[in-house]
């Protein structure tokens, strides 16, 4: 057990180390000087700047980007910023620090993603285990579901979200097209605000839930078809044990193990999907914020969000891995 936790924790540290290094390298490869780019951007908006002010600004910007000093000290600088969660000020919302922008948006992303994962994983797995158990003679309704899921499954997040947006916001204006709540609404714990938030979250959540449900459904179907052919399931059938008991106590509980592993491995992908979906619906989570940062070339914010995402996803994976032994007695008792 202890061995298992230690291994996973080590893995977590390695992932964070490697990916932060990767991000550092990518940022270093920026073809144009980000400082000059920023200055150019500011001057292009027509703001007049005194040449000496520009000089000062360049110096402070270089410090902020960690471009001062040797490569090695720049690299350590990146780590220091990550550990202290101090990514410097945002350029587009100057002088708000990047960390407080992230803090605000992460709430929306975590909320949306949490609901989506919980709902889609549950529905997908339950439908999947039934389809897998009866795969030899699938009921017609299941066959239809299987077909529909097979068609939806390969569609990328952006396209599906976009189709939802066009269908349910423009053609049939049933849901708002952007934001997390209506402009002018005062955030607070009251019914009208909550309804408003739910209304705004419906389309992004639905499009993600639909895609992920198909994903969990398909893999659960394949896994539980396999488990259904295992000796212990066949033997339980021989014992006359009722189908629903076999499905949930025998097939489901065993097929769940790879699905938990799979969830922890797919967390990165699911998170990526959420970013993209948020961009489509201009949802003010990390994705939406990232998009506006891209649009305004706010590199500080971009790097901050990317680094934060990597650590957050790795942490999520770590937590899931830590929960895993609850499902598998073979690890619990080794």
């Amino acid at each position, binding site marked *: 057990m202890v061995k298992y936790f230690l291994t996973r924790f080590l*893995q977590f540290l*390695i*992932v964070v180390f*490697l*990916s932060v290094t*990767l*991000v550092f390298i*990518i*940022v270093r*490869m*920026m*073809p144009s000087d980000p400082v000059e780019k920023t200055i150019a951007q500011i001057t292009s908006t027509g703001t007049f700047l005194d040449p000496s002010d520009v000089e000062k600004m360049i110096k402070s910007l270089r410090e902020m980007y960690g471009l001062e000093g040797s490569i090695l000290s720049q690299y350590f600088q990146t780590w220091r910023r990550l550990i202290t969660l101090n990514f410097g000020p945002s350029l587009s919302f100057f002088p708000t620090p990047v960390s407080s922008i992230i803090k605000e948006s992460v709430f929306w992303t975590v909320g949306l993603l949490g609901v989506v994962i919980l709902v889609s994983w549950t529905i997908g797995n339950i439908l999947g285990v039934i389809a897998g158990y009866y795969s030899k003679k699938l009921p017609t309704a299941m066959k239809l579901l299987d077909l529909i899921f*097979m*068609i939806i*499954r*390969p*569609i*990328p*997040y*952006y*396209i599906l979200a*976009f*189709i939802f947006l*066009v269908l349910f916001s*423009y053609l049939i204006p049933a849901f708002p097209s952007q934001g997390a709540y209506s402009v002018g609404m005062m955030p607070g714990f009251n019914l009208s605000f909550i309804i408003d938030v739910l209304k705004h979250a419906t389309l992004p959540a639905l499009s993600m839930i639909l895609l992920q449900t198909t994903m969990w459904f398909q893999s659960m179907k394949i896994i539980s078809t396999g488990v259904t052919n295992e000796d212990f399931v066949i033997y339980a059938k021989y014992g006359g044990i009722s189908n629903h008991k076999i499905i949930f106590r025998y097939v489901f509980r065993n097929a769940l193990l790879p699905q938990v592993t799979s969830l*922890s*491995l797919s*967390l*990165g*992908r699911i*998170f*990526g*999907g959420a*970013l*993209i979906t948020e*961009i489509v619906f201009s949802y003010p989570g990390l994705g939406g914020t*990232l*998009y506006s940062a*891209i649009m305004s*070339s706010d*590199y500080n914010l*971009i*790097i901050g*969000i*990317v680094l934060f*995402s*990597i650590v957050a*996803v*790795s942490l999520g*994976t770590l937590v899931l891995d830590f929960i895993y032994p609850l499902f598998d007695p073979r690890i619990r008792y080794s």
Partner: protein
Amino acid sequence: MKMLIYFRDLMSDKRFSFGFTVIIILTVLALISVMSPYSPVRWNVVPEEKPPSLKYLMGTTSLGQDLFWIVCFSIKNSLIFALTTAFLSRVLAIVAGMISGFEGGIVDRSIMILSDSLISLPRVPVLILVGAIFREGLNLYILALVMASLSWAWDARVIRSQILSLRERDFTLTAILSGSKSLSVVFKEYFPHILPIVFASTLNNMLWAIGIETTLSILGLTNPLIPTLGTTLHWALSYQALFLGVWWWVFFPVTVLILLFISVYLLSVSISEYLDPRMRIQRIGQAR
């Protein structure tokens, strides 16, 4: 002759025959792009914003381009891009997986640590970062290389575990007893078992590649002058095509994308089922 039998078997699977037909149609569209009367990067070659008609099959854009030909170019570029990415990442996956599985020891452990990290790495933010950093400088080949180097890990793992289990099978020993060298064992003995995984994962990798490319392009993070299904949508959206009623500018690329995704996916599902070694062994026995 053998290929023909395989093909006939596969065509009896409805999923395969649908996917195959659509892919053939899309490939034909991609091929006829060479016959296009207009260069894809020139604007204002046809009247603007004409709805679909016999003359302009998919209508024209606000940029004065014939959407049909743009879509043909886009399919070509998207397919080439997807194939390049898939090919590069397959090469990485096969090499890494085979070395890892066959060598073992420290080499294996390092490769596995690297691939485990890549698997749990959220790729979308990293790719968005790459896009944001390089912007227009990001041509399709560089993007393919970046994406390939981010997407080999999972399949390398699968290939490695296959090799590990194949290594334990007695036929590996028989091959060695027959005087075969390591490399020939890998290629003659293991490759036929690994092929189905490689095949199915190539198609899945293509799907992922097109999906990401489209997303990055729509966000304006790639070179918008290269016509792909993503950049076409990027232009349409930045010209507010839907608000202005130029619906076809959005409708056709999206439809083609969806068809492409579904057909490639169906091909991958049906082929990997068909190539599954257990099924193949059954068929071999049944041939006599």
